[in-house]
């Protein structure tokens, strides 16, 4: 196997010069975005350095407590991100459903993956557990965000049809079926599309990273396939849980529409 090229400080500096050139162009064109570019580059650098050191520490001191804490932080961050990303107003009830679906959907997929597919031992080995958890949680977060927007928008926009269905004796489940199905479709579509283009249109990030760091492409692909299936499972499970529990928050116990 080829030796991995370790980036030197001056090489990283060269990458920053790239950004400086970009800044000059932006400035010349009069696009008022220098501040955003600077802040986001600086933030990214700091976050990654910090994460790098934390991960190094955790990898060297493999311990189930650390692994669980890291997963907890990721989940909390992901759930908070969903709340922030969705532009519509969310009721406390639906926020609770989002959190429950994220935690149940991603942890059950993750455990299946770690225990059955990879057969990791010890199960909490952070070198595997943490990156895989990150990918499952990150993709599920994107999926559920789309699902939440679609569900809430659909329930509000189609309020009249739902109400009419109830007047005709429909159960809330029947009345909301179309919207629930739609929300599910649009939430998992990006994951399905990215699977279809994978390997042809683009090389997935994880695989690229592994290949760059010296792993054989075939090994990288084996992992990529397994991880993609895990991601699909996790996204689908999270979103199914969400839509199946989520639509109920729009109805009260008298089967009346309750949209404030």
């Amino acid at each position, binding site marked *: 196997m080829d030796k991995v090229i370790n980036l030197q400080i001056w090489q990283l500096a060269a990458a920053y010069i790239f950004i400086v050139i970009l800044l000059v162009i932006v400035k010349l064109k009069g696009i008022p975005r220098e501040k955003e570019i600077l802040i986001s580059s600086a933030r990214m650098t700091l976050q990654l350095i910090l994460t790098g050191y934390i991960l190094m520490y955790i990898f060297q001191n493999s311990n189930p407590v650390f692994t669980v804490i890291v997963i907890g932080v990721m989940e909390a961050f992901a759930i908070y991100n969903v709340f922030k990303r969705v532009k519509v107003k969310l009721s406390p009830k639906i926020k609770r459903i989002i959190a429950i679906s994220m935690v149940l959907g991603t942890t059950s997929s993750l455990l299946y993956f770690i225990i059955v597919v990879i057969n990791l031992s010890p199960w909490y080995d952070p070198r595997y557990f943490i990156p895989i958890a990150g990918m499952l949680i990150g993709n599920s977060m994107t999926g559920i965000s789309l699902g939440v927007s679609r569900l809430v928008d659909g329930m509000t926009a189609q309020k009249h049809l739902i109400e009419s269905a109830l*007047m*005709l*004796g429909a159960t809330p489940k029947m009345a909301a079926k179309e919207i629930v199905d739609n929300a599910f479709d649009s939430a998992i579509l990006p994951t399905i599309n990215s699977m279809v283009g994978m390997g042809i249109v683009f090389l997935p990030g994880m695989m690229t990273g592994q290949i760059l760091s010296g792993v054989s492409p075939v090994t990288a692909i084996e992992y990529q396939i397994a991880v993609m299936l895990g991601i699909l499972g996790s996204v689908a499970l999270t979103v199914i849980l969400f839509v199946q529990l989520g639509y109920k928050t729009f109805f009260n116990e008298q089967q009346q529409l309750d949209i404030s």
Partner: protein
Amino acid sequence: MFQLEGVKYKNILDIKQLSIPANKITCIVGESGSGKTTLLKLLNKMISCSEGEIFYNNDAISTINSIELRRKVVMLPQVPAVFPGTVKENLLIGLKFSEKPAVNDEKLSAVLNMVQLNKPLDEDADKLSGGEKQRLALGRVILMDPEIFLLDEPSSALDEDTEQNIIEKLVHYIKETNKTLIMVTHSKKIARAYADNIIEIKNGRVLN
């Protein structure tokens, strides 16, 4: 059939006492914003009263399962609902929602005839005009054959002749099958001609 005792809904309706007879035609009249739609929605539990109680055949409706009640007491909303799909699918969707068996095309055509909607069953329902949608929605409710019809201004988008015609057929059907009709109407003429019982609402109160 329905008995209202001290019913209040927010500050919109305030009805001390009201009874609506079975197997009769009751018309609800009153100016816009007086609370007619709100009253209908209370009767099939689309909303629940803030105070008081409504009895359906002597049972408090707060104790009746909402879905079961709505399958017997079917409401036609003021703005007709058109679901994505054909005329046929729109007619059948009421039976589907209330989990009743579907009917054949002959029956569907008969209903279209009754509401004077001369359109093929496979026509896209979204293309219909406002008045046609209203008749389609009425046809759907008739097909469900409920005990009680709650109709909210079922003929508001129709011209006077069509209105007269359809309401007459509907009234005939109700009498013949011994059903109950509770209908909000803006037309004093319709109310005078067909109602056995008229309820007039003003500012959320019943006048007599």
